[in-house]
């Protein structure tokens, strides 16, 4: 099995998620090479061969010419698999490459199984096992599916490529930075919620600080909202908002059923509580048994470093 990993740059530097490509290569075994549009001054930690296109001339987004680069690398390597991240870059570029090669593409791969690929479907609720029928297959990897154990290391052996080809009718015209928005818990990737067990209103800023250290939003259980410690628009639960973030941290929330209704579909749930058997343990992936406020302070501190 030979894989060609398509690394990506995000806003001028290698994406941290690139390590999932390495995690995939480790899981798949066999030889692997990489291809990247980037700069020599900022290469991903990777010990293999890397075909490098110059970002100064190719730009961060130019799928016509980036596809050309990947195809050139593929021609040199003759890989069995060309692997992208399932990202705004990967899902845009992968089908262009697959289409040119008339290669099977499997999107949102979550695992390797039975000589095929497991992929997420039905909004992530179900899985499919897909088997490509073509000699070379294109994959995009579902975020979080191929974690790399350990930190990536190595310096790639760079071979520069200068793709010909056109920009396929596209012209990149720059970035637009995100606007500051009102609280929308439904869209937050991380929510840190405060429960009655935080004790007093004065402790709310510490919870908010943890949320911001995790680049998330602060939520709250109903008693905290009813007590007037936190605004209603942050309430999670049957009568507040129904949320399903990537990470939900419940601080001093015992897990009344009306709260669980609002957050149980979160992808990963951490509960910080003094009671190991609090109902929230039914849905928690991790129970941290500790005094809440000192733990929150310590965690915030470590995250900021």
């Amino acid at each position, binding site marked *: 099995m030979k894989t060609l990993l398509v690394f990506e740059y*995000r806003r001028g530097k290698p*994406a941290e998620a690139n390590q999932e490509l390495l995690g995939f290569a480790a899981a798949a075994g066999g030889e692997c090479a990489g291809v990247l549009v980037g700069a020599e001054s900022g290469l991903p930690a990777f010990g293999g061969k890397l075909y490098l296109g110059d970002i100064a001339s190719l730009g961060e*987004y130019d*799928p016509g010419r980036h596809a050309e680069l990947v195809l050139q690398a593929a021609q040199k390597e003759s890989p069995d698999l060309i692997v992208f991240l399932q*990202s*705004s870059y990967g*899902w845009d570029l992968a*089908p262009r490459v697959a*289409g*040119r090669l*008339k290669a*099977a*593409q499997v*999107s949102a791969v979550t695992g390797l199984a039975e000589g095929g690929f497991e*992929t*997420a*479907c*039905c*909004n992530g*609720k*179900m*899985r*499919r*096992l*897909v*088997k*490509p*029928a*073509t000699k070379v297959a294109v994959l995009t990897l579902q*975020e979080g599916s191929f*974690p790399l154990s350990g930190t990536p290391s190595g310096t790639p052996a760079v071979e520069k490529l200068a793709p010909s080809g056109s920009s*396929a*009718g*596209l*012209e*990149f*015209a720059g*970035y*637009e930075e995100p606007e500051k928005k009102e609280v929308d818990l439904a869209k937050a*990737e*991380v929510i840190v919620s405060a429960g009655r067990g935080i004790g007093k209103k004065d402790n709310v800023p510490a919870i908010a600080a943890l949320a911001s250290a*995790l*680049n998330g939003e602060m939520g709250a259980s109903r008693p905290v909202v009813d007590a007037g410690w936190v605004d209603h628009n942050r309430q999670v639960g049957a009568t507040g908002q129904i949320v399903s973030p*990537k990470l939900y941290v419940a601080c001093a929330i015992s897990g009344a059923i009306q709260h669980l209704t609002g957050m149980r579909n979160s992808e*990963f749930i*951490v*509960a910080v509580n003094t009671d*190991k058997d609090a109902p929230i343990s039914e849905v928690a*992936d*991790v*129970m*941290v*048994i500790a*005094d809440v406020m*000192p733990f929150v*302070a*310590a*965690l915030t*501190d*470590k995250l900021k470093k």
Partner: protein
Amino acid sequence: MKILVCIKQIPDMASKFKPNAAGSWFSEADLAFRMNEYDEYAVEEAVKLREKDPASELAVLSVGPARVVEALKKALAMGCDRAVHVPDEEAYRKDPWQIASIIAGYAKKGNFDIIFTGMQSQDRGSAQIGPLLAGMLGFSCVTTAIGFSLEGRTATAKRELEGGAKGVVKAALPAVITCQLGLNTPRYPTLPNIMKAKKKEIAVLNAAELSSEAALAGTEKFYAPVKKGTGLVLEGGDAAALAGKLIDVLKEKTTVLRG
């Protein structure tokens, strides 16, 4: 201006999914179907463009079994001028390459200036049809549009990127635009328009005549993911040590601590 919007009908995502007899996709029994949410944004954007130019024409196309006519009628009620149904009782067995080939088989004769579709379907989630179709037709293609405008023969689309920033991309027509949630506010079809849509044309085309491409990949199994085990308990030690342990777990099991 000739506009095409390609839509899919998908089951309500709140449903419980069970494998079909062959174990290769979900059983349709007990499922309620509706227009793929991403495609609703595509239809809305297409209708908005259509309304700006009275001389333009907007067709909506769907490949799938008889039930997709309901989704086509919704698109007609939202403002599409005519519909194209490519009946295929077993469309779920086709891979994105085949579906894109069928659409291309129709679109290459249609002289379209712009084609909208959802960035992905909620059930398959492949996100391939748009770019594949563009490649087959020789159109430019922008994916994941969360903003769209058109001036002359140049479309300007904003792509949604990780972390909330947007990438602004100009695309020369003819173009395929794949639409992300939040691009606009899809309208509800009005009841009078639902009734009037009865009179709009729904052309029925033969899939085999549009494309005879074979599948490049096949679905072997359909199943629920393995459930996560009982939770991990972290306890003992001082707060800082516990916090360190939790950070290790979060790094391993989630993506939120990556840039």
